């Protein structure tokens, strides 16, 4: 049992919106006031949210914890508007309430003895900032690699805990290329030594797949926060299964892992990425 298992909540929580702000290109940040006893949590863990209106949506949906400020009992979610739920979320205003369960699942835990390279793609940058804040004291030599399609889609990062290296596909800000190319360039310039780092990543599954393949070829540990279609988020529906390569001696059952309880943070190098939807 990992430390996070003990966080399993007994009841849904009522969260009050403190603020709900547009960041850039369809991406929003919601700050939620939680009950005093909520938490603790790790970046990479998630909450299942009952998106309003209640009558419209039977299923709840997962959102990553981008950070949780325990002193203020404030939970931060960063989300992109892609469908009706996230549209309705974006319309919530301060004072309104949300019902959610969490923290759920396994978050990011440090690979000991390795310099952390945090990689965020798109809105996936948010939990990476939360993670960097957590590790800034204990693991001060980390870096953040932040990839986006273009400058106008970048989410502003105030006071980053680690140095941030930018990559945009169109070169409109920072390095022109994707985060793997940025990583390769840093290695070429000897700013990063693949033998001493571990990768922690959150972003589109396509990016995580490419990164995991790269990491495996270089023997670099690579933890990724995966998104699949969750039915329940609590391990009872078997809907979120992710195919992994069973280790020797494991039987066929071990081929699928539940992203909601055995993830969402998983060893990217063991995932069979062809079996994961984009």
């Amino acid at each position, binding site marked *: 049992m990992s430390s996070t298992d003990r966080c*399993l*909540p*007994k*009841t*849904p929580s009522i969260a009050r919106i403190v603020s709900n702000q547009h960041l850039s290109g369809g991406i929003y940040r919601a700050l939620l006031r939680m009950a005093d006893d909520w938490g603790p949590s790790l970046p990479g863990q998630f909450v*299942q949210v*009952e998106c309003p209106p209640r009558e419209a949506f*039977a*299923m*709840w949906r997962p959102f990553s914890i981008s950070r949780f400020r325990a002193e203020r009992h404030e939970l931060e979610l960063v989300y992109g508007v892609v469908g009706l739920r996230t549209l309705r979320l974006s319309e919530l205003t301060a004072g309104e309430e949300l019902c959610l*369960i969490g923290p759920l699942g396994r978050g990011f835990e440090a690979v000991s003895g390795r310099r952390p390279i945090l990689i965020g793609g798109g809105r996936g940058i948010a939990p990476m900032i939360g993670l960097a804040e957590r590790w800034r004291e204990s693991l001060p030599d980390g870096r953040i690699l932040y990839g986006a399609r273009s400058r106008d889609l970048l989410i502003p990062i105030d006071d980053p805990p680690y140095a941030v290296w930018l990559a945009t596909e169109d070169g409109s800000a920072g390095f022109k290329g994707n985060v793997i190319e940025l990583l390769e360039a840093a290695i070429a310039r000897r700013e990063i030594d693949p033998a001493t780092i571990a990768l922690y990543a959150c972003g589109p599954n396509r990016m995580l797949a490419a990164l995991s393949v790269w990491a495996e070829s270089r023997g670099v540990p690579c933890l990724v926060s995966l998104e*699949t*279609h*969750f*039915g*329940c988020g*609590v*391990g*009872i*529906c*078997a*809907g*979120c*299964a*992710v*195919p992994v390569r069973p280790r020797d001696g494991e*039987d*066929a*059952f*071990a*081929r*699928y892992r539940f992203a909601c*309880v055995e993830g969402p943070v998983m060893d990217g190098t063991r995932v069979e990425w062809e*079996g*994961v*939807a984009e």
Partner: protein
Amino acid sequence: MSAERPPEERVIDLGVELGPVRLPNPVLVASGTFGYGNEAVDLTRVRALGGIVTKTVTLEPRSGNAAPRLHETPSGMINSIGLQNVGIERFIAVKLPELLALGVPIIVSIGGRRVEEFQEVARRLEETSGIAALEINVSCPNVKEGGLEFCQNPASAAAVIEGVRQVTRLALWAKLSPNTSSIGTLARACEEAGADGLTAVNTFVALAVDIHSRAPIIPSGTGGLSGPAIRPIALAKAREVVRHTKLPVIGVGGIASAADALEFLIIGARAVQVGTASFPRPWLAAEVVDGIGRFLREEGETTLAELIGSYRDPRA
């Protein structure tokens, strides 16, 4: 003045008998929608449940189907899990003891491709103790081999029940498929084959297509539709089963509130199962139990038996 308790405090016994099986109340969680049964322990008052039907267990472990396995539809959900499970051996060694320790009736759902496989699983479970009943899943629409045949063909469903009946004294519930013209005939066949109860219904064969890729959203094609969308059809099917057999019927399909559960009990189901509705609210089944008690008190009913089958059928 009378010493009677005010009506809202009267405690009504929700206990119910389904042939050889006695349940503390008529609200179970449905197979495959509550993990093995212990996963949601921290999320609900498990002891409040009338029983837990486990995920379907097969002889060998199964890894299940490819992702995505779920797709939301209007008021419903298509799934194609493919009976992912640890196999009977590990189930008995690891899961069952944990389950039995929960202190609620455990109904083990079993599946297989051939009669012999069902029999072998049942035989192994016969050797354990503490199980309240077996639910025979002759109706999973998501397993390629034989799955749908069992659903549609009363003879093959009956053969499975008969086969399992030979190897165990455990109470047997047959879980019926709705994907048939005449669920009454299917029910009767299972009754004659030796079932002690009938669970109605499993999911409906359903399809969703990605209009851009032109491929089905569930990689294998069709899946099973569940959730509130199917409730009116499931209720009609459950009523057919009640009309065609003398066996106790366990109603399932789209129940998401006490009112929904009451519809099934009124048309004659002796118990109900909550499925998909547990996904967003794992505590829902426990709330349904409370709600049924409240309803009986409000309606001035003194026993659950008065409610069950109280349907005023215009055809009767």
